[in-house]
């Protein structure tokens, strides 16, 4: 059953971990050198794996120890895993290059806590994510989820301050509830199927209370770890409080791990069980996430919090593909253009969001703060950083030929084809809302600056790393067109139709920003009744968000969601 | 002979269980930490000792019997020490209160 090139799969999991262990043993400056070497090796393995996959066109499989499932464990990399493996490797490498300037051991000390721990955790996140991507076993996935959490949580509180420790603890404890629900589901599936191997479970699982309960619990638990609205209580403070090189990892990659397992669950483990109603719930939460995330983002004073809320909204976007991937004839979720779109969006967000956090970190470094209202003149002072932020933002809007652009097109087609017009509305609206907070930041940084607040120069390599990742989102579109997506989708960006669409997105975004943003330059007088009303609406969203982020409410939401999924599956069967 | 040994086991284990019961009642009903401790350590040492003693005829092999006795000795050691430590903490707490 092991396919040629299969050995790459255990390698891509273990090379980062072995690198981290070697770095721990060596310590100090040596740790950073080991990390750099591991980044290079890991990137090479991921790319090689991509080549093997493209060459054979078949999923790469590796049976560990020669013990066939169900008794043993197999690692598998299909198209989804392979593309994610490469994307993760590229993003991690970009972040690694960026982080060198922030996390090098200071002169005069042989070892410092922050740098050593950062490099160890970066490698650990990578190994854990690769394990999530290639694991073919539900329990190994549980271990992978926990590894990812243990690697992610300390990244949140690297600075050791009270508020980031609080954010880290909130994240950890809530995420633990998520994993324990996942484990509960895996336990039930073992009781039902007598195996944890994903293809075998898929063969043996059938509609039954244990199966519904298992899928419902696992999905709810994974959503808690992915921070899908309304289970996002931990995300904004955790992602905004971490150092930028850590925020980039957390926001771009770590939340994608649990999201990827949701896809595995709904498309591979039990494609016939959830049904359309459950998918509509999922996408409905996604739509709410877009609305809440974007509108609350517009009310933030700090750039990093704005980006964190943007992550909340973009996570919502990822879930819109579920009802569009449902095939009514077979009653199952099928791998098709909607799933491809979802993966494109996932990868596009990974590169773009990493770039945005990195750019925000550079602006923070240049100004000593990240208050959006006081970033005037940034365009002149740190042009590349601003460019990286804007390119990342534009990539997410889905207006120019970027990964998100293709994803949006594919999803719009799928929505049209299946008659689910309301998701077309959400998809378009999502683009407008994304535009609004990008425009808001752009408007602030392009204002003429105050000469007194002269910013500090930031390292050029960091700026280039951020910009390069942002541009990857556009390269992704090209890669996708040569890969799984039809080339017709990639129109001429300057054709009148495309141009109008782009301009309209930006224009509507401006309008939304002017009405809802809290601290925009006073283009519209505060006395204007429409503005006042919109501010009140925004305030209501912000207060609702705060209420939903109460611990007890978020905990309750977790269970309520599990029940909703269970009930939807019950009716589907 | 086996019947006789069985009766011995029943009696010894039963008596041991009684001491455990008495010790538990003492733990719940006695007024303060020191007296409760007294009840508890008696239950541990005597109760467990009788249970182990009663089980010895039922064990196959000398090694397993030895393990049982070692367990009893270890529990005695640890309960005596834990008792001492708790009592000291209690005495310190009382001094602070005075």
């Amino acid at each position, binding site marked *: 059953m092991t396919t040629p090139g299969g050995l790459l799969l255990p390698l891509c999991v273990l090379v980062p971990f072995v690198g981290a262990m070697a770095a*721990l043993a060596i310590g100090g400056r040596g740790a950073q050198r080991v990390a750099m070497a591991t980044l290079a090796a890991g990137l090479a393995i991921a790319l090689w794996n991509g080549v093997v996959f493209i060459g054979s066109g078949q999923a790469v499989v590796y049976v560990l120890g020669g013990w066939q499932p169900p008794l043993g464990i197999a690692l598998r990399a299909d198209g989804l895993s392979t593309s994610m493996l490469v994307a993760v490797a590229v993003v991690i490498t970009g972040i690694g290059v960026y982080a060198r300037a922030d996390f090098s051991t200071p002169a005069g000390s042989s070892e410092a806590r922050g740098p050593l721990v950062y490099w160890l955790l970066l490698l650990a996140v990578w190994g854990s994510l690769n394990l999530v991507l290639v694991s073919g076993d539900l329990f190994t996935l549980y271990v992978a989820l926990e590894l990812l959490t243990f690697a992610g949580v300390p990244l949140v509180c690297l600075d050791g301050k009270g508020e980031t420790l609080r954010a880290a603890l909130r994240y950890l404890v809530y995420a633990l509830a998520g994993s324990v629900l996942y484990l509960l589901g895996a336990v039930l599936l073992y009781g039902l199927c007598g195996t944890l191997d994903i293809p075998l479970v898929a063969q043996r699982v059938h509609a039954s209370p244990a199966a519904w309960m298992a899928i419902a619990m696992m999905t709810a638990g994974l959503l808690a770890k992915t921070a899908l609205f309304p289970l996002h209580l931990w995300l904004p403070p955790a992602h905004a409080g971490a150092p930028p090189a850590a925020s980039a990892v957390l926001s771009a990659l770590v939340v994608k791990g649990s999201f990827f397992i949701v896809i595995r669950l709904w498309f591979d483990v039990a494609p016939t069980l959830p049904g359309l109603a459950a998918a509509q719930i999922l996408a409905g939460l996604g739509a709410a996430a877009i609305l809440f995330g974007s509108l609350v983002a517009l009310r933030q004073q700090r750039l990093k919090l704005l980006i964190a809320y943007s992550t909340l909204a973009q996570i919502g976007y990822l879930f819109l593909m579920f009802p569009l991937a449902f095939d009514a004839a077979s009653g199952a979720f099928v791998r098709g253009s909607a799933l491809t779109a979802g993966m494109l969006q996932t990868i596009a967000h990974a590169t773009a969001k990493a770039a945005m956090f990195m750019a925000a970190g550079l602006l923070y470094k240049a100004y000593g703060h990240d208050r959006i209202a006081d970033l005037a003149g940034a365009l002149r002072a740190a042009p590349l950083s601003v460019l990286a932020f804007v390119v990342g933002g534009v990539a997410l809007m889905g207006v120019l030929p970027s990964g998100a652009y293709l994803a949006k097109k594919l999803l719009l087609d799928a929505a049209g084809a299946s008659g689910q017009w309301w998701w077309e509305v959400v998809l378009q609206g999502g683009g407008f809302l994304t535009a609004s907070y990008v425009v808001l930041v752009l408007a602030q940084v392009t204002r003429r600056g105050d000469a007194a607040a002269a910013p500090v120069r930031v390292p050029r390599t960091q700026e280039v790393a951020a910009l390069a990742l942002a541009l990857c989102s556009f390269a992704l579109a090209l890669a996708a067109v040569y890969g799984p997506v039809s080339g017709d989708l990639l129109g001429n960006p300057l054709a009148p139709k495309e141009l109008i669409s782009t301009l309209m997105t930006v224009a509507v975004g401006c309008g939304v920003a002017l009405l809802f943003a809290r601290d925009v330059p006073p283009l519209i007088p505060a006395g204007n009744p429409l503005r006042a009303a919109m501010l009140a609406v925004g305030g209501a969203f912000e207060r609702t968000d705060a209420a939903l982020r109460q611990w007890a409410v978020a905990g309750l939401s977790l269970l309520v969601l599990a029940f909703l999924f269970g009930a939807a599956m019950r009716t589907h069967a | 002979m086996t019947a006789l040994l069985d009766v011995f086991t029943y009696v010894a284990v039963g008596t041991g269980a009684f001491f455990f019961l008495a010790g538990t009642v003492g733990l719940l009903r006695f007024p303060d930490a020191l007296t409760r401790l007294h009840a508890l350590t008696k239950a541990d040492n005597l109760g467990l000792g009788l249970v182990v003693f009663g089980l010895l005829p039922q064990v196959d092999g000398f090694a397993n019997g030895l393990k049982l006795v070692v367990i009893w000795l270890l529990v005695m050691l640890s309960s005596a*020490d834990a008792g001492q430590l708790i009592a000291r903490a209690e005495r310190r707490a009382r001094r602070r209160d005075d």
Partner: protein
Amino acid sequence: MIELFYAAPALLILALGVYATFARDAFAACAGYLAYGLLLTVAWVQLGGVDVALTEAAIGGGLTGVLLVRACAKLPAKDSGLRADGAGAPIRWLAALAAIGVSTALAYAVLALPVPAATLAPEALANLAATGVGNPITAVLLAYRAMDTMLEAIVLLLALIGIWSLAPDRAWGGRPGPGYEADPHGILAFIARVLPPIGLVVGIYIFWVGADQPGGKFQGATIVAAMWLLTMMAGLTDAPPVSRRLLRLLLVSGPLVFVAIGAYGAFAAGAFLGYPEGLAKPLIIVIEIALMPSLALTLALMLAGAPQRSAAT
């Protein structure tokens, strides 16, 4: 009579679980949890899982209980109570409803599982000979699903790195924990001198029999770790500074040997983590011997906590 033997611990476990969750006083709750963990051990024996029982007693109940009780003692009382600024009554009612719903659904789902039960026990036994070990659980942990065990060792190491990462910057490289002082002639010092030699023997024994009987490296390592912690608390030994190279080498050596033997399998047995014929048992034992000190160190240091003192003191 048999039913009573099941029913008594089962109901006591439930009662203690409820107590540990609801007790007003945090310390009482943690103490309740300790007793709960011990009773779970009885449940594992009744469910035919002696290996699990040993793990539960050592780690699930034992070490976790120690962590909780110590946290209780260190935290200010206002931070550990049950009802300070808790959820409002409507939320509490809804939460109770949801929790009852989950329990009911879960009970229903489990009772509706197919009969005869799905099991891998026949396969596990059929392949036992190829692994050379006599305990099927060891065969699962170190042959059939060796990858999980390797990852588990990495999980522990990663958690320890996470714990160390919480050190204040000034204490980095220093010794974990508060540094205990105890009367050198006191009872704690006495038991910390008497018990460790015995504990060491017991720990190694439990580790050694693990290949063929219930036991194994995790359970054995926990006992060894507990002995070391005991001597630390009695002030007889001190936790090593985290900057010490030898310590770090010992921590990573177990998992690295595991990976290396796995890689050897890729060449010699045709599969990563495979064992060449006839070499399975010796290689498994090498892995276990390599893991044992790493695990014992990792577990003990996880309890010792983040570095707090500079290496000099």
